[in-house]
């Protein structure tokens, strides 16, 4: 039921409006029973409630409304003329609907009450079973009858003899009102509040039986009158209850105790957007004032600006909240989606939603609808196995799919977890190679984690038979792109055999974001904090020493990993103002699945900035995501981290992406250009090997070399790394001094590694190898002209095979 919250709220709002009108209509109608238009209006209202209740699977509500509708239908057709008896029965129906709606609002369910007596009465009236002597018999019977129904809510026989039915009809209205009270578990607070706050206005819950018992005595109209007032007292205490009694608030989930129609209003979204924009402007003005205020010392002004600061922040939060919607709004369609899809795939899936109340800006809610649906469909389609397979794997027959949402660090995290088969990295690799997304070399070099991320590659998914891959497939690139578009990130964790978790992080709002302000060549830029990992500052000698250059591209060793560096001034073609780099500021950023360091001149503060779009004439520049106005009133550009990374070619995924695009038109073009690592062997031997085969470059002290099984090995990252001296393999004399550390190229495949010992690492180049010549020399694949010089390309597999023939046997197996 909770999944339909939004629908239910709307239903409640509508129904309350309708019901309030109904009370008036009935009273009027009773005075003027021939009023066809009014009858029609009542009929339509009840009909709508019945229809919506049916749609929302509120069966009891539906059946009550249905019984009333049948009677109204006959009245409308002119079969009967409305009389007091019918009016009371119909009003009782309105009350029944009202109390069910109240229960629905406070507890989310329509309650257990079935209102069988009421339905029976309405049915009897519809069937035309009306007592001839109703007015005579009723008072006496009614006076006697009411207490029992009120006490144990009996079920009168559906079609009793007319004379009995009529008396029964009169008291029925009362049990309805009474039943409302005996069910304290569901509507407890509301009822107590009602009873406590408003005992005086009317015969509410517990006090009902006596008044009714006495009321019918004078005339048959009396019961009608006694039930008619009931609505007003009910509505009034509900309103009252949230003011004087604070306890009501926490017990009634929607809108703090009051009826929805009392506490909620409909607001035009456009208006909210305008208010949000204004608050954005206010935030900027506040920033300006704070900055200005800091320049002169005036306690009064400082106080005022401080207060402005706090109020603005509060206002900003408040306005943001008005635009917030629970994520349940998106999720509420998933139970159905999952059920249908599971059915179609003959699977059993139990969906549980956790954190449906987590709120997000409505623009973001819109933006994540499709990606989330994709992801959920994928989890059911490809994640969860068929019941047979699950049982065979020792899991319960029904798969579990868990959607979790929660706030963390100013972001919203959404996790989609299934306990399915997980993703087989090897299959993903094969599939990616098959589809030409990556080269086989690259695939084999990838870690399982990296390989699993290939499912996000465009083109991986478009295959018709993605189900071949025992993971997810359809549209995962769409998921990733759409989430990234709104500044979010997607990550996937999988455990073969145990399931997969898709982790999505998205910002709370798009309009105002925290950003790091940096300077480069005299310009200020804002970097969205979402992409920021850490800041590194290198000073003096350290700065000069720790930056290493590989053919024009600079890298920095960050905790042992090579971090490609991008100089912001160069990337943006700025005129550098500082020539000598005494200090180096590196902003470590995450772009796609890669990290890179952005070298800037200065790192300032973090600030809340208001994102403003760039004019159409600047949209083409991918390096910028937008602009903002800084505290001093000047404009600063917001960097698009991914765009910068792509410009500087540090994002491999971007390369892969463009490769895929090219691959469709000219498959070979990407193949032609090859990235090579060049190294020196002997005094002037220049050799290369594909960069894709290089896992790492290491310097290893000579004295750490040990021997195992007659081979040179070193202990390396908690494992034994066999060394392979390329000089010896190719019979080249080494001229390296004997105490210099070994230059080692680490190569990994299938979880095993080799260290190639060379004389010197020269460079990396990316070049199209147009001139190739097969080589007869052992250990050399071919010779090519690289960077204007003839270079031998090392036959990595051949060399390894010679030393360790078993190395590739696993691959064949």
């Amino acid at each position, binding site marked *: 039921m909770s999944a339909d919250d939004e629908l239910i709220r709307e239903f409640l709002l509508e129904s309350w409006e309708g019901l309030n009108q109904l009370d008036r209509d009935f009273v009027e109608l009773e005075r003027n029973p021939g009023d066809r238009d009014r009858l029609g209006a009542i009929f339509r209202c009840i009909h709508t409630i019945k229809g919506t209740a049916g749609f929302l699977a509120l069966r009891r509500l539906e059946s009550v409304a249905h019984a009333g509708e049948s009677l109204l239908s006959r009245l409308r057709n002119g079969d009967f003329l409305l009389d007091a008896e019918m009016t009371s029965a119909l009003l009782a129906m309105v009350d029944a609907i009202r109390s069910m709606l109240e229960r629905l609002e406070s507890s989310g369910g329509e309650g257990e009450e079935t209102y069988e007596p009421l339905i029976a009465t309405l049915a009897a009236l519809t069937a035309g079973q009306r007592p001839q002597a109703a007015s005579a018999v009723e008072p006496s019977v009614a006076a006697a009858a009411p207490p029992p129904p009120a006490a144990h809510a009996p079920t009168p026989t559906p079609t009793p003899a007319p004379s009995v039915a009529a008396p029964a009809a009169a008291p029925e209205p009362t049990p309805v009102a009474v039943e409302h009270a005996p069910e304290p578990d569901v509507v407890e607070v509301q009822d107590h509040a009602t009873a406590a706050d408003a005992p005086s206005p009317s015969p509410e819950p517990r006090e009902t039986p006596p008044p009714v018992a006495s009321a019918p005595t004078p005339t048959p109209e009396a019961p009608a009158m006694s039930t008619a007032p009931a609505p007003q007292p009910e509505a009034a205490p509900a309103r009252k209850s949230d003011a004087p009694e604070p306890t009501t608030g926490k017990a009634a989930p929607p809108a703090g105790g009051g009826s929805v129609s009392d506490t909620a209003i409909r607001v035009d979204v456009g208006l909210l957007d305008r208010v949000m924009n204004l608050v954005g402007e206010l935030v900027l003005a506040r920033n300006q004032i704070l900055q200005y205020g800091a320049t002169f010392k005036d306690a009064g002004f400082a106080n005022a600006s401080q207060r402005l600061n706090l109020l603005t922040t509060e206002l900003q939060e408040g306005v943001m909240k008005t635009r917030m919607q629970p994520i349940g709004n998106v999720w509420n369609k998933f139970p159905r989606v999952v059920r249908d899809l599971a059915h179609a795939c003959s699977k059993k899936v139990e969906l549980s939603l956790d954190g449906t109340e987590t709120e997000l800006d409505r623009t973001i809610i819109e933006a994540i609808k499709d990606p989330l649906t994709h992801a959920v469909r994928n989890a059911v389609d490809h994640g969860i196995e068929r019941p047979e397979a699950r049982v065979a794997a020792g899991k319960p027959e029904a798969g579990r799919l868990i959607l979790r949402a929660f706030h963390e660090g100013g972001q919203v995290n959404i996790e989609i977890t299934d306990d399915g088969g997980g993703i087989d990295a090897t299959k993903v690799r094969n599939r990616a190679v098959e589809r030409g997304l990556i080269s086989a070399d690259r695939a084999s070099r990838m870690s399982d984690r990296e390989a699993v991320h290939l499912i996000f590659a465009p083109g991986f998914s478009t295959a018709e038979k993605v189900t071949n891959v025992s993971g997810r497939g359809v549209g995962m690139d769409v998921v990733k792109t759409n989430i990234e578009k709104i500044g979010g990130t997607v990550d996937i964790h999988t455990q073969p055999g145990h399931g997969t978790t898709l982790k999505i992080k998205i910002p709370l709002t798009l309009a105002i974001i925290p950003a790091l302000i940096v300077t480069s060549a005299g*310009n200020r830029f804002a970097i969205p904090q979402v992409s920021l990992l850490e800041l590194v500052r290198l000073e003096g000698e350290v700065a000069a020493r720790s930056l290493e250059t590989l053919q024009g591209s600079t890298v920095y060793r960050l905790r042992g990993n090579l971090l490609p560096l991008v100089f912001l001034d160069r990337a943006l073609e700025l005129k550098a103002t500082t020539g000598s780099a005494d200090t180096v500021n590196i902003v470590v950023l995450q772009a796609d699945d890669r990290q890179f360091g952005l070298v800037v001149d200065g790192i300032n503060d973090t600030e809340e900035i208001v994102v403003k779009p760039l*004019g*159409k*004439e600047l949209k083409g520049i991918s390096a910028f995501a937008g602009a903002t*106005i800084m505290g001093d009133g000047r404009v600063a*550009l917001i960097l698009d981290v991914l765009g910068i990374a792509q410009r500087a070619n540090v994002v491999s995924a971007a390369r892969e992406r463009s490769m895929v695009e090219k691959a469709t038109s000219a498959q070979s073009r990407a193949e032609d250009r090859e990235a090579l690592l060049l190294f020196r062997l002997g005094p002037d031997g220049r050799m290369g090997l594909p960069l894709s085969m290089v896992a790492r470059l290491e310097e290893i002290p000579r004295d750490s070399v040990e021997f195992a099984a007659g081979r040179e090995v070193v202990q390396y990252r908690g494992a034994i790394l066999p060394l392979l001296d390329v000089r010896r393999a190719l019979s080249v004399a080494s001229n390296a001094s004997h105490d210099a550390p070994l230059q080692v190229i680490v190569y990994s495949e299938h979880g095993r590694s080799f260290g190639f010992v060379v004389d010197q690492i020269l460079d990396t180049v990316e070049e199209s190898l147009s001139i190739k010549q097969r080589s007869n020399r052992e250990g050399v694949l071919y010779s090519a002209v690289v960077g204007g010089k003839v270079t031998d390309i090392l036959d990595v597999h051949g060399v390894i095979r010679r030393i360790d023939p078993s190395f590739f046997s696993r691959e064949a197996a």
Partner: protein
Amino acid sequence: MAPQTRQLCTFSLGELLFGVAVTHVQEVIRYQEMTSVPLAPALIRGLINLRGQIVTALDMRARLGLPAREGELPMNVVLRTTDGVVSLLVDEIGDVVQADESAFERVPETTDGILREIVSGVYKLDRRLLLLLDVERVMQNSQANSKGEAA
């Protein structure tokens, strides 16, 4: 028949006098500090904070291929276009002129290429010619340029 007139806001660039329909002009303001946009075509001089709105400033001298401005700071003619608000950086602001439609003529064939791209016609005023600027075309071309740059 009463002569039809058109109100034009005029400004000068070098020797040339331009006009744009006053209905296009949001305001005319003095030189504003601006933030240059790296990687953007030369036409785009920078971004201006116009009361909280970020407006792109287009250097009309660069657009016309005139030599760069020296000394005097340019003025901003802020225009509303279908693609949003832009500012044209010009040398000097002139008067608002009531131009007579009967004095309007298409651009002579012999006019320089760049001018023909962005000028939709000429008003023959008493002593000089007033070139009617086609705002949308100035914009279109600036987009084409920036796309070319980004590619």
